[in-house]
């Protein structure tokens, strides 16, 4: 196995594509990390499903107010210019196309943009939350993920085998090895770690990687 980006580094890379002034929803867990890496001089406004816009980072331990949480039920803080609203207004923002970008985790992504990130099958208690709304609402839906599963199997596939979250919704995938766009039903490689060859990357990917112009080096600082 070659070098790969840490989760923090994947989040850093995804953060570089968030424009100044963007309204952003970050999925529960790993994607929340993207907020830490906003480039200097750019300001994004973060949305959480449970009715807060413009929140800030976590409070210090012991200073939590449990009426002020995010969709992951973690305590948050407010920044000047924040707003509260109820769940129907919150999902009007989502479904109505008012979010510029949603960044989500994934179990699997297919080359046509299908996403599977809510269920690993019929075992256990199913839970979907707001993921199905986000994938059909935000103007741009991006995924951050390890390039392969813990046991080394591809997560980028010709077709998802797990239950779908949404159909044809993902347009860019930031992995631990590469940045890949989804265009016209194909994976198009944009950036890859300099330490991995195209053929090595292709071998770790469950569908054909296409080229459309030069592939940039994916260079991410230690974070």
């Amino acid at each position, binding site marked *: 196995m070659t070098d790969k980006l840490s989760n923090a580094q994947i989040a850093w890379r995804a953060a570089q594509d968030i424009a100044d*002034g963007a309204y952003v929803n970050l999925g529960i867990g790993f994607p929340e990390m993207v907020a830490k890496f906003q480039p200097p001089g750019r300001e994004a406004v973060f949305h959480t499903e449970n009715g807060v816009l413009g929140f800030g980072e976590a409070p210090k331990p012991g200073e939590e107010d449990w009426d002020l949480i995010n969709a992951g039920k973690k305590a948050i803080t407010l920044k000047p210019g924040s707003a509260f609203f109820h769940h129907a207004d919150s999902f009007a*923002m989502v479904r109505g196309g008012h979010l510029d970008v949603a960044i989500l985790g994934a179990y699997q992504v297919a080359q046509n943009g299908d996403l599977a990130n809510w269920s690993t099958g019929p075992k256990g208690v199913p839970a979907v939350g707001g993921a199905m709304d986000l994938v059909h609402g935000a103007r741009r839906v991006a995924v951050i993920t390890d390039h392969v599963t813990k046991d080394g199997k591809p997560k980028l596939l010709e077709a998802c085998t797990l239950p779908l979250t949404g159909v044809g919704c993902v347009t860019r995938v930031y992995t631990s090895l590469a940045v890949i766009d989804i265009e016209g039903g194909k994976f198009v490689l944009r950036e890859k770690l300099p330490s991995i060859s195209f053929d090595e990357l292709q071998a770790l990917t469950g569908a054909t990687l296409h080229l459309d112009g030069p592939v940039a080096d994916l260079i991410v600082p230690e974070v």
Partner: protein
Amino acid sequence: MDKRIPTLAEAVAGIADGATVMIGGFGGSGAPIELIHALIDRFLATGSPKNLTVINNNAGNGHVGIAALIEQGMVAKMICSFPRSADPKVFTDLYLAGKIELELVPQGTLAERIRAGGAGIPAFYTPTSYGTDLAKGKPVETFDGRPYVQERWLKADHALLKAELGDHYGNLTYRMAARNFNPLMAMAAANTIVQVSHAVEPGGIEPEQVITPGIFVQGIVEVPHPAQEEELNRADAHYPEVAQ
């Protein structure tokens, strides 16, 4: 992030010929008179925008605001619930002459269609208008034994709105019943421009008191002491001013 626009002229500069424009207010309450008049100024100076589709509960009163917009010949179509008014001459004359189109929508359906546009709901069912002329041609479905009419969302290219406080992020509050359609139209337009009576710094509106969160707003322009349509009409005002 700072959504403030310095002048009314810049605030309305992006509205093109043929655009669909939602205009806030119910009668004169919440009507963005200064934004509308800025649009008229632009039309008088440049001949544009024209052929507008305007969405508002009414079709203007007197000779200011929406009535003045119609009077200038800038409006090809009105979508509204109550185009009659105490001084209906402008719209009435054009309508009866077949020179302006009207889509008549029940008031609650109009509000819900606009909200649906903002909320990503392409269609919904309502009991309103079932069995009436206004339901003609619309799909009907029965739920739990009762018939309902299918209605489609309404969206717009632009919304011109009036609010009380507005901060740099576009968070808004409204003054009393001037709220009416304004928060809904903010959601349903691609470009929502708001005249606010007081522009405040971020933090100048309590987060719990925000009525329209800034995500729905593209620009605000401060208009202190805005004109009230009802008072203009009681003074028989015309826009642009005419020699009496």
